[in-house]
């Protein structure tokens, strides 16, 4: 059962009021404008045992995403296509309010929003992931872990996911005469085939003010968010209104415009980080 959440006790009411009043005047405590996105720091290939991975810092929010390729059976209605599974967990390291245990509705919603954007835009080229058509295909597991929570987990997760997918390489496989598949992860044959790119951009609403990329303090005064998936060619690849409030039609259209501009830029940042890493220049770590 989904239930009205208790207000997080993280941000004291006085501070929340200050934040809300500043936002109404178009000012943010961090000095950002309403449409400023926080700096994003991306470490490509952070986890050696993953087939692709990324650590993303969006302000003080930290997310690690990893891709594992496993040999599995295709869906009966798509016998020559790979499969995609996206999971997200909010780790108890990220916030004193996060409990260990299976993903709650927020983590499930986050994973499903990213999953749908990847799927609808055909980000991964599933048609190239058959190993033995009709029998064995690659299953692409994307696992997202939020390690530190300073707001806007969806966007940070979507950036980490896109980076991890772009960082993923297919291991060598051998198929014997009986159709058994042996994977040799020590040899990498090609990058994961990618068709398109997508990130989400979150626009928050407090009273009548719209602003992008809320941090944790700002989220304490947000009742409604629009999470907008943006493709590299500037189309809308998904929307999710979230939170216990509503929006007017004009607000939705304004939020879209903010998101489309921001999203295309974020994808460019990811692309440049990934090619930097491919040419061996990525160095940063979690510290």
């Amino acid at each position: 059962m989904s239930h009205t959440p208790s207000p997080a006790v993280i941000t004291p009411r006085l501070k929340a009021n200050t934040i809300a009043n500043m936002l109404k005047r178009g000012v943010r405590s961090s000095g950002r404008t309403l449409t400023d996105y926080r700096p994003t720091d991306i470490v490509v290939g952070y986890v050696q045992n993953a087939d692709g991975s990324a650590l993303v810092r969006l302000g003080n929010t930290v997310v690690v995403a990893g891709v594992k390729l496993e040999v599995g059976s295709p869906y009966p209605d798509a016998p020559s296509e790979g499969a995609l599974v996206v999971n997200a967990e909010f780790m108890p390291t990220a916030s004193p309010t996060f409990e260990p245990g299976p993903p709650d509705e927020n983590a499930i919603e986050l994973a499903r929003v990213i999953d749908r954007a990847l799927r609808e835009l055909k980000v991964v080229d599933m048609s190239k992931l058959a190993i033995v058509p009709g029998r064995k295909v690659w299953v692409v597991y994307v696992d997202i872990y939020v390690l530190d929570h300073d707001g806007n987990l969806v966007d940070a997760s979507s950036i980490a996911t896109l980076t991890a997918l772009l960082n993923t390489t297919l291991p060598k496989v051998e198929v014997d005469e009986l159709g058994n598949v042996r994977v040799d992860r020590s040899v990498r044959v090609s990058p994961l085939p990618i068709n398109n790119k997508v990130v989400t951009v979150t626009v928050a609403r407090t009273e009548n003010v719209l602003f992008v990329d809320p941090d944790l303090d700002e989220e304490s005064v947000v009742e409604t968010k629009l999470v907008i998936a943006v493709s590299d060619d500037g189309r809308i690849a998904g929307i999710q209104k979230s939170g216990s409030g509503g929006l007017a039609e004009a607000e939705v259209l304004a939020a879209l415009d903010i998101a489309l501009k921001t999203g295309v830029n974020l994808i460019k940042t990811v692309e440049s980080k990934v090619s930097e890493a491919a040419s061996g220049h990525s160095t940063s770590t979690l510290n």
Partner: protein
Amino acid sequence: MERPRLIREDGLRHDGRRPDELRPIRVSIGVLNKASGSALVEYGRTKVLAAVHGPREIPQRHMLLPDRAIIRCRYHMLSFSTHERKSPAPSRREIELSKVVREAIEPVVMSEVFPRTAIDVFVEVINADGGTRTAAVTAASLALADAGVPMRDLVVAVAVGKVGGVLVLDIDEVEDMYGEADMPVAVAPSIGLMTLLQLNGVLTREEFREALKLALKGATQIYEKAREALRDRYMKVKVEE
């Protein structure tokens, strides 16, 4: 099942509807005896039951809020409501939609009237033929009204789809499965608020504008149906008394 032709040569849809035409909508209020309020809503062959218990006290006191009621909501599908039998364990989709439906009705409930209580909304999908979450929002909203929960407005919902390149209203399951996009929208028309907005699929900015307009048009028609049903119910009660 082979991909059916979604838009026929005459411009009508696979089931003969015009692009901007709703399925037959049926609304019944107060269908259950032991719930505080209930409603059965049908969009074509999609059949959704909503029941409300409360406002009431609950044993899980740590969930309650000092200044208003909390709303708890479960969206649930009966195992035989779908083509393939649905396993009884709650799916991730059901967990997400429980949140989405709750957040669609929460903006109109005057929860401040009943602090330290819970208002529980249970949605049961009896037969699923596309649009179950939108029918669920409409049913939940009517069940709340039937339970006497004070509300700022009724919320009604409908999905717009893009199928065969055409934007169409109130898509059914075939159109959802084989179409290009599905955009469910919930509206509280009198207060001008969208309380649910999802897009599954890819649209340009212009297509999105059009789709939104179509959804609001459909919602207005459902809103009239819903208010009429409430009026009927209310007057019947008066007469019976």
